[in-house]
């Protein structure tokens, strides 16, 4: 594989950039692989990459119904953070933060990781107390957290509404300075390119039709491009999890819901942090192109539509304008939607299943993008070693029956409620 560098850039400039190698191949599926990963999103690509890199398993295929990076990895709002209170979530996410920091060098691909910090705004004394508690928990787990008062927040984001007579005045906020954003497409492409170079077959336009299970063991998968045998199969399909689970006669603690995001027209640099509204569900950052990138609540009812509905968007942007009134002057450039695998406690599942050789990675709710490297790393470990790693031991499938829920937000089983 051609290494990307300033020298390769200059060299290719002389040939009008017409002789670059393809970033990944377009192979025909083989009859059999050691491991098949279903789902060519960020998590699936990362899983294949870490299977090859950490476990030396390279006879791997990624099967993708559409194209690489066309699902949620290309539809999210690119926020990366580890500001969690519970140990299982905090340690997993912070492990991921380390992988994010090294990712561009590791993948030889500029993922434009930008640790610009995230601020969660607080709008009452009670909320400040809750944030102080979460911040302390984070610091005990070695994650940077700073509790900001109103004046400190005003210094960082002066464009927010600090007037006196507002419904949700800003009391302060909790900041994780090391959080940030990254270029989401580059993450998918970087993982795909490296996985491909180590021998992984990335098979696009290949839909899973069924599974070959016998005697409680998985033997392979039936696809629109023929049958593929594999002793180990990893399911990594986010919002489509229930559709494939049905083919396996499994019912999971997952519901598929729709989340929208949107960007405004590009404007000059105004916001150099990620900011979230604390009295509702709204988050915002500014992309390198100058667009304000925004998102918030789910549409609120089961959906596989991959496109949104207006009432939720209006509701979310009302919150945005309450927080930063200047947003009302901006024109909307694009809105879009992606389908989320909402788990019943708001935390993900990375585990083995009752079928030998079948592994499950799902339930990422709104938070899948930031988890891409840690999810891939731990899922690869779970598949390669046939046992969960300490880091994903809290993300078990049976925690729902044993009562060991990871309800970070305390929303009960209706995590889609707004």
């Amino acid at each position, binding site marked *: 594989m051609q290494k990307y560098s300033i020298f390769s850039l200059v060299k290719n400039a002389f040939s009008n950039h017409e002789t670059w190698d393809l970033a990944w191949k377009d192979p025909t599926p083989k009859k059999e692989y050691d491991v098949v990963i279903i789902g060519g999103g960020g998590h699936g690509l990362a899983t294949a990459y870490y299977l090859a890199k950490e476990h030396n398993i390279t006879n791997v295929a990624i099967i993708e119904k559409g194209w690489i990076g066309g699902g949620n990895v290309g539809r999210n709002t690119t926020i990366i953070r580890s500001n969690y209170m519970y140990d299982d979530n905090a340690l997993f996410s912070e492990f991921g933060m380390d992988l994010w920091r090294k990712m561009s060098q590791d993948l030889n691909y500029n993922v434009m990781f930008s640790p610009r910090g995230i601020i969660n705004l607080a709008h009452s004394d009670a909320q400040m107390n809750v944030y102080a508690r979460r911040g302390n928990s984070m610091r005990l787990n070695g994650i940077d957290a700073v509790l900001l008062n109103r004046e400190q927040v005003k210094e960082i984001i002066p464009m927010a509404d600090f007037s006196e007579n507002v419904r949700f005045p800003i009391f302060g906020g909790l900041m994780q300075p090391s959080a940030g954003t990254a270029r989401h497409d580059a993450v998918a492409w970087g993982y795909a390119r490296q996985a491909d170079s180590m021998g992984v077959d990335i098979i696009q336009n290949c839909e899973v039709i069924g599974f070959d299970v016998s005697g409680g063991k998985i033997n392979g998968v039936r696809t629109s491009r023929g049958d593929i045998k594999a002793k180990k199969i990893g399911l990594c399909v986010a919002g489509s999890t*229930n*559709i494939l689970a*049905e083919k396996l006669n499994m*019912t*999971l*603690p*997952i*519901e*598929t819901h729709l989340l929208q995001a949107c960007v405004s027209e590009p404007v000059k640099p105004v916001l150099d942090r990620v900011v979230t509204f604390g009295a509702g569900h709204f988050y915002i950052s500014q992309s390198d192109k100058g667009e304000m990138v925004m998102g918030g609540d789910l549409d*609120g*009812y*089961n*959906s*596989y*539509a991959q496109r949104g*509905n*207006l*009432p939720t968007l209006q509701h979310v942007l009302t919150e945005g304008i309450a927080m930063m009134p200047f947003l009302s002057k901006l024109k909307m450039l694009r809105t879009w939607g992606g389908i989320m695998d909402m788990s*019943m406690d708001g935390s993900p599942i990375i585990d083995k299943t009752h079928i030998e050789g079948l592994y499950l990675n799902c339930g990422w709710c709104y938070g899948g993008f930031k988890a891409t490297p840690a999810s891939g790393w731990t899922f690869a470990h779970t598949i390669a070693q046939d046992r969960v790693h300490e880091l994903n031991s809290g993300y078990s499938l049976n925690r*729902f*029956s044993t009562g060991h829920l990871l309800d970070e937000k305390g929303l009960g*089983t*209706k995590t*889609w409620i707004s």
Partner: protein
Amino acid sequence: MLHIKCPHCGMRSQNEFSYGGDASVKRPELGKEISDQDWDNFVYNRKSLRGKHWELWQHLSGCRQWIKVERDTSTHEIFNTLKATEEIS
């Protein structure tokens, strides 16, 4: 914007309703022996169908009644609505 025909009030905008999830889920009967698996299925496990899906909605800013709605989860087309007391046929 969805338009939902409330069996009590007629066609109304989605804004008047709130969502209550899968209507096919049945609470295990009181006083009977119930396995852990039955409870799991009632509390947590969902089919989350793609296509026709019976679900509960509440006409919150209207008659405040819970209703059942048959909706396609990939096209949002609504086929049928029933009162909460009416059985899905």
